[in-house]
Structures are given as structure tokens and as C-alpha cells.
């Protein structure tokens, strides 16, 4: 496996710890090598030391087993080179041939692009020109591409066109680490392996759906990046629309890569476009102001390094939208995503309709809340179902209670990290949990309309919300107008 951008944070925090954990779980082949490729002039001992400290800090099981690490690190290599330098790719090829020969590897190669997006097309072109991307099934050459995949519909289309000149679609693994999370995968099992939920999963029984992707962190030194991206590009276009597609899709004909992707893309294509004149009623954006998170004062977005004092990049977005399909006709989906929220949480909450006839009197009716099925993607992955129950005693009093399933308690261990699962899937040639070209373009097509409307908007300033709060009042109004309110996740 070759990691481009090996000197970056992702490699140290996620990729190497994932590979180490897979080794520890005996899920990687005994003969395996990792080559870090980056522009930095580093050497193998320094790279290995840096990766070890990353594993000590971020691996799922700590501390690192010294014996295992000593074996593992012998297969960790480093190669310096420029992404736009064809010679560096020729040198990389020679190095890979040498390593494979020395270790007796069969020549299967995975290239992981953890670089700035502007380098994706160049790297893939250079890989192709160096003869590193043969289309053969065995030995294979596959490329994992990190997000963001484009910044709008036009750039995503262009990038797809560029990389398709070198790679077949089946060689491309566009990674969205949300799809590697156990609960996201479990969503399909929950829906399609249980007989009781799918019959309720439609507009007859579902009142509305809420999706929340909240982070407590701010831009964490990535102010310049966030100025260009905003939360709509950073979170919604990829992670959260993928979650929407899994929650709303029709049953696939089989649990196979293209069967699942075919159903997901139908959902993304069925997202009803928000017309420019409907933006105010369907979209709320805002920026965080200073406030308090986890007991400490934090600055406002415009006071972050690299952020313009007149910035219009949104750190909060709330959307109301519909999916034009038989299943979801008339069911509003409310989605919000933001930085500097009170707690870090990603969840899907299916709010069911109220019982059609309330038997238990007005006073009890006040206490009866609609059932909510909440699927927690992170942290504390699990599922809860709220329902009303009679309070023990002679009076007929009803109180909401909750049934809860948590991975940690039910299976006795925390689920594996998303990167472990996705890297392994790529090696096994299973693209089910990766996004296909048409999915990316369909989600950009929907998102880009919102960006276009914002670009055309005359609004000078965005509303603000205090850090540590659940967003601006306008976001509450989005639901209040419909007689609903945000669930506190």
C-alpha cells in the first residue's frame, strides 16, 4: 500500500494506526508493505518513529505491542518525491518492484491519496504514466481517494473525467469514512434483516426524519481551508448525504457493490432541488460566535487564524428537503451540521407519526410523544427507541421511556475504526462502502444549487450562534413553522 501525503496528519492519526490494528487482528496478509510517499525530505527511521508515536497515541488498542511493532515496522518504507514529478513515480515503481521482490509480494497495490485535492488528478496521471495502474484483476492496482472530491458539480465532473482516463471505475475507491462506521453499515442490516422495521419505513408511518452531524471542535487551524469549503461542502455533500441515501434507499436486489450503489444514487437523484426562491424557507446558515465548550472559552469563527473578519463561510447549516419518491412523498427531512455545537454527535432520528386516536384523555395525551428511532453513528454507536409507557401505580399516567442498544455493551467491545474496515474492503475488492462517480455527481448537483443561490444572495452578513449552543434561532424556526422541533441529540 502506498500512501501519498504520508507526512500529513491523516496518515499518523488514522491510516497507520488502522493498518497496525488490522495486523494485530491478523486481518492483513503476513506479507504486506506500506510505503509512505510525500514531498518532505524524510527518511525511513524518522518516518517509522513518527508512525509509531501515532499508533501509541491513536491506535484502537493501546499500548502498542512492541514485538508486533518490531515486525510491522520492518515493512514500513518511505519514499520522497513530488506529486507532479514523473521521475519520482518512475523511482516509486522501481522501489515497489524491489520491495515486492524482497518480501515475495504478489504485486497487488493500493494507492491511498491523502493529499490536497488539487493533486489527485496529477498523481493518478503520473501513476498511469509510470505503469503503476494496470487494469488487470490480478495483480490489482486500486486507488483510494480522500475527500473532498471536487468543490462543485463542474469540478467533480472534471475530476471524474480526468481520472477515468487512467483508471477504470472499479479501480477507484472514493472514501467517505462515515460509511466505514459500524452503525452506518448496521443501518442496512437493521432495515433489511429485520422484518418489523421496513414496513414502517415510509410516508405512511414516518412523520419526518432528522439528521444531525454536530462537532464540538472549531476549524482547528484549518481556517483557510474552511473559508473555501464551509460546512455544506465539508460535511453535508459527502458524509451526511451518504447517510441520507442509506437511510432512504429502497432494498437493493443483493448486498453487492453495484446493487447498493444503484439504490443510493436513486435517492440522491430524487432529492428535490431547493428553488432559489425557497432558500429562506428551507436553508439556514450561520457562523459561530465566541462561547463556551466543555468548560473553556472559545473564540468566534471570524477570530480564528486564517479566517477573514468579513467571512461568509458557514459553520452551521440546517436544511429542510424532500425526496421525490413514492416511499418518501411528503416526508420532510431536516438536516443540520455544524461546528462548535454542545456535543459531538452524528445521528439519524426517524420520528414516527402520532397514534391516530388517543385513548387516554387530554392529560395523558400531553405526555405521549411520538415514537423516535434514533440511530447513533458517533460516538457511542447504537440505536434507541423511545416509546410511552404506563407509570406504575393506580393512576393512568404515561411517561416516555427508552430501549437502547449500544455496540459497546451488547458485543463487549468497541467497533473497529472506520478506516480499518474501509482499507480492508478495498484490499478485498469490495466497493460497497465507497462512493461511485455518479453518486458524487448527483450529490454535487443538489448541493451546488444551494451554493449558487448563496453566491447570488445579497445578504452581507450571516447570523451567528454562540459556540456551545445548538445553532441560531432561525434553525429552530425552520421546524417550528412546521409544528416540530429539533430533537436534542
Amino acid at each position, binding site marked *: 500500500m502506498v500512501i501519498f501525503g504520508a507526512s500529513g496528519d491523516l496518515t499518523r492519526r488514522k491510516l497507520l494506526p488502522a493498518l497496525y490494528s488490522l495486523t494485530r487482528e491478523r486481518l492483513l496478509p503476513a506479507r504486506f508493505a506500506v510505503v509512505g510517499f510525500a514531498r518532505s525530505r524524510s527518511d525511513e527511521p524518522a518516518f517509522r518513529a513518527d508512525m509509531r508515536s501515532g499508533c501509541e497515541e491513536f491506535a484502537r488498542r*493501546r499500548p502498542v505491542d512492541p514485538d508486533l511493532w518490531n515486525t510491522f515496522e520492518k515493512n514500513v518504507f518511505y519514499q520522497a518525491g513530488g506529486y507532479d514529478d514523473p521521475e519520482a513515480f518512475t523511482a516509486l515503481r522501481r522501489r515497489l518492484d524491489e520491495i515486492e521482490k524482497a518480501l515475495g509480494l504478489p504485486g497487488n497495490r493500493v494507492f491511498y491519496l491523502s493529499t490536497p485535492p488539487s493533486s489527485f488528478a496529477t498523481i493518478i496521471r503520473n501513476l498511469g504514466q509510470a505503469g503503476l495502474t494496470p487494469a488487470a484483476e490480478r495483480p490489482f492496482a486500486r486507488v483510494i481517494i480522500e475527500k473532498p472530491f471536487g468543490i462543485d458539480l463542474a469540478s467533480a465532473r472534471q475530476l471524474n473525467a480526468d481520472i477515468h482516463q487512467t483508471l477504470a471505475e472499479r479501480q477507484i475507491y472514493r472514501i467517505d469514512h462515515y460509511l466505514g462506521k459500524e452503525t452506518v453499515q448496521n443501518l442496512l442490516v437493521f432495515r433489511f434483516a429485520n422484518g418489523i422495521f421496513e414496513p414502517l419505513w415510509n410516508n405512511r408511518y414516518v412523520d419526518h426524519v432528522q439528521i444531525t452531524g454536530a462537532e*464540538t471542535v472549531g476549524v482547528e487551524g484549518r481556517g483557510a481551508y474552511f473559508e473555501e469549503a464551509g460546512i455544506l461542502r465539508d460535511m453535508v455533500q459527502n458524509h451526511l448525504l451518504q447517510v441520507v441515501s442509506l437511510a432512504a434507499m429502497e432494498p437493493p436486489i443483493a448486498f453487492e457493490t453495484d446493487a447498493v450503489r444503484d439504490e443510493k444514487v436513486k435517492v440522491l437523484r430524487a432529492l428535490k432541488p431547493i428553488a432559489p426562491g425557497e432558500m429562506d424557507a428551507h436553508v439556514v446558515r450561520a457562523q459561530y460566535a465566541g*462561547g*463556551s*465548550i*466543555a*468548560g*473553556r*472559552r472559545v473564540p468566534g469563527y471570524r477570530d480564528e487564524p486564517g479566517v477573514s473578519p468579513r467571512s461568509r463561510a458557514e459553520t452551521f447549516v440546517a436544511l429542510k428537503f424532500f425526496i421525490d419518491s413514492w416511499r418518501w412523498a411528503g416526508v420532510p427531512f431536516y438536516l443540520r451540521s455544524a461546528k462548535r455545537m*454542545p*456535543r459531538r*454527535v452524528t*445521528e439519524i432520528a426517524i420520528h414516527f407519526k402520532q397514534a391516530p386516536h388517543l385513548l387516554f384523555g387530554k*392529560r*395523558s395525551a*400531553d*405526555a405521549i410523544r411520538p415514537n*423516535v428511532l*434514533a440511530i447513533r453513528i458517533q460516538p*457511542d454507536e447504537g440505536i*434507541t427507541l*423511545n416509546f410511552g409507557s404506563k*407509570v406504575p401505580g393506580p*393512576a393512568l*399516567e*404515561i*411517561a*416516555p*421511556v*427508552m430501549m437502547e442498544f449500544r455496540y*459497546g*455493551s451488547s458485543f463487549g467491545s468497541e467497533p473497529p475504526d472506520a478506516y480499518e474496515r474501509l482499507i480492508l474492503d478495498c484490499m478485498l475488492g469490495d466497493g460497497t462502502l465507497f462512493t461511485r462517480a455518479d453518486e458524487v455527481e448527483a450529490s454535487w448537483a443538489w448541493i451546488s444549487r444551494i451554493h449558487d443561490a448563496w453566491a447570488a444572495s445579497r445578504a452581507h452578513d450571516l447570523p451567528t450562534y454562540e*459556540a*456551545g*449552543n*445548538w445553532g441560531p434561532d432561525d434553525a429552530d424556526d425552520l421546524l417550528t413553522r412546521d409544528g416540530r422541533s429539533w*430533537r*436534542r*441529540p
Partner: protein
Amino acid sequence: MTGIDSGRIERFSRGEPVEVEVAAIERELSALWREAAQARPISRAALWNLIVYVGRSASLVEAKDLVGAMASFVPARVIVLSYDGHEASGPELGATVESNVVSTPGGARTISSEEITLTARGAGVEHFAPLARALTAPGLPTALLWIDDPPARGRLMRQLLMLSGRLVVDTGVVSGDGDLASLHQLAGLAQARVADLGWLRLESFRLLFAGLFDPPVGGAPLRAPGRITIHHQARRAASALLFVGWLACQLGWTRPEARDSRSGDGRHEARRFRFSMPGGARMEVDLVAAPTTDGGTLPEAAGTAGVVAVELDTGGAGFAVRRTAGNRAELCLPVAPPRSVKLDSRSRMELCVEALRPRGHDPLFAGALAFAADLVAASEWTR
């Protein structure tokens, strides 16, 4: 491995507070539960998020005892917010977590809930609302217990109210009229339903007074011109005002004219209100503060409910409910000899539990409170 030492886990399992980092409360709590469950199976339960505000550090122990005792009846995720504006030293913000463990009869099973205590001094109070937002468990209703001090209209109260579906207050601790008016304004602002421990204490008194007019007496005396005198504890007029508000709402009295008066010795205070009743008759209501004993303490018979006696005089015919010793009341009617009955003697913990049940929010309270706030406004106007 979590790296939690066994002493901490043991203390946590026993229900003792364990200090945690403010920034990692949820994580440390999860780790403590996980480790504690290694030793024995644990059933965790929560029906509410219970945010308890303590405005004086001297009341913290009492508040924690209260929520600890409530755990048997209402398992909850408790978040105690303790602020002391006078504390000069110590960290600005601190946190402890503990378990509230309840054994089922026979001890075959224990059910645990959790309690997070945040203590702040100085500017640390600014972190209370964001932390409460972060720490309330999803999917559960949230109640705010603000019972040791009169409800304040400050920023913290407003922020916490935004989180809460129920506000539990105690008009039994309200000493000034302004506090009652504040509570009425808060009730108007909040989406929260208000439950009042003072109102719940007053319940048996209201029922006994209303019972005086059951058949064969009937309600005619309440519609005739007359005078009602409500004796209440000094500096505890809120209960009396709520009692008047309740009567007014039930009997259709119009908004009052008011007059204040003060007795010569300065030890007791009286207020008179005049109301028009449906049909045009007038009812005068006197609120009379009961004299304190020589030592300045309140009469034992008053208990904590504030109202000591309610008397109706309709030109010769007298009806009365008077508190007597031993938490009893004497009922007086013109048609029968006086009789003594037991008054409600629920503890504060039992009242808090009641306040969280559906019956805790009494729709009559909102009307009585609004009327009482009008009485306060009328009193201020005539001062």
C-alpha cells in the same frame, strides 16, 4: 484498558463523588460505568434529565441528598449546578460524578443512575448552560429544579429554561412579591411547564377549604358578599396570594382593587383586596401575616406551606380551615361542630417526585399564578 484506578471505580460504585475533568465528563463517566460493570452486573435507568441549580454552596449537600433520595422514585441523569458568587478561592470550574444506586426489595438487583456535579465560582458560571446542553441525555425529558432560591430572571435561568420541558420551583421559599411576579414572567417566557412545590403543599389546604362547600352547604356562601381572611406566615405571602388567585379563577372574580395597610406594632402586616363577583356582589379578601413568636420564629402550626388559616365570613356565618399543632387542621362550619383532620405532610423529596409526574403540572396553577401576579402589581400600584 482505560487507565482508571480501582479506588476511583470503587468509590464510584459506592455512590461517592469522583473528580473528573470538566472537558471529559461524558468519557470518564462511560469508562467508570464500564469498569464498574466488570465487577457486577449493573442496570442503569433514567426517565429524566434533572438539572438542579444550587445558588449557595451551603445548600449543596442538602440538594445532593435530595436528588439522591429521589433516585429511588425517579431514576434520572442528574446535573447539579452549584454556584457560589462569594467563594474567593478554588478553581473556577470543577466536576465530580457519582452513581446513585438503589437496591430493589431483597437486594436481588440494583438499579443505578448517575449524578454529575459542576461547581463554579466567579465567571465559571458562564459555562453552566453550555455544559448542561452537552450533558443532557438524548431522548429524555428535561426538568430544571430551581427550588432553593426564588426563581431569577437572569441569563442562566433563561438558558436553562430553553433546555427544559418542566421548571420546578418552590414558592415556599419566596419572600418578596417581586419573586412571584418574576416567576409569572418566566412562566410566560418558557416553553417549560411550571410545577411548584408550594402549590403542591397548598393542595390539601385548598381541598379542605373547597370541601367546606360540599353539599349540604353548597357554593352559595362563596357567591354572597363577604370577607375572606387568609392568615399566612410573615414574609411568606406567596402562598396566600396563590390561594387568592386560585379562588378568583375558580369563582370568576374580576381583577382587584387593592389597598395595603400596616399594623401599628410593625410585627404584622395586612393587605386588603376587593373583588367583584359574577352577579355584582363584592368580596373582600384580607391577607394577614401571622405574628412571629417572641423569639422571632414562625408558628409551628404553619409548617412550610405558608398559609396558616383561611376564614370566610358572610355576615354571621363563618367557615374556616385553621392549621393546628401536629400538622392537623381544624374545619369549622356553621352547621356542624368543628372537626380535626390530618394535613398533607409530604416531604420535600416526595413533592419533587410529584412535581415530575404528570400531575405535578397542575393547569390550575398557571391561572392562579397569573392572578396572583396581578395582585402583586395592584399592591405595588397602591403603595
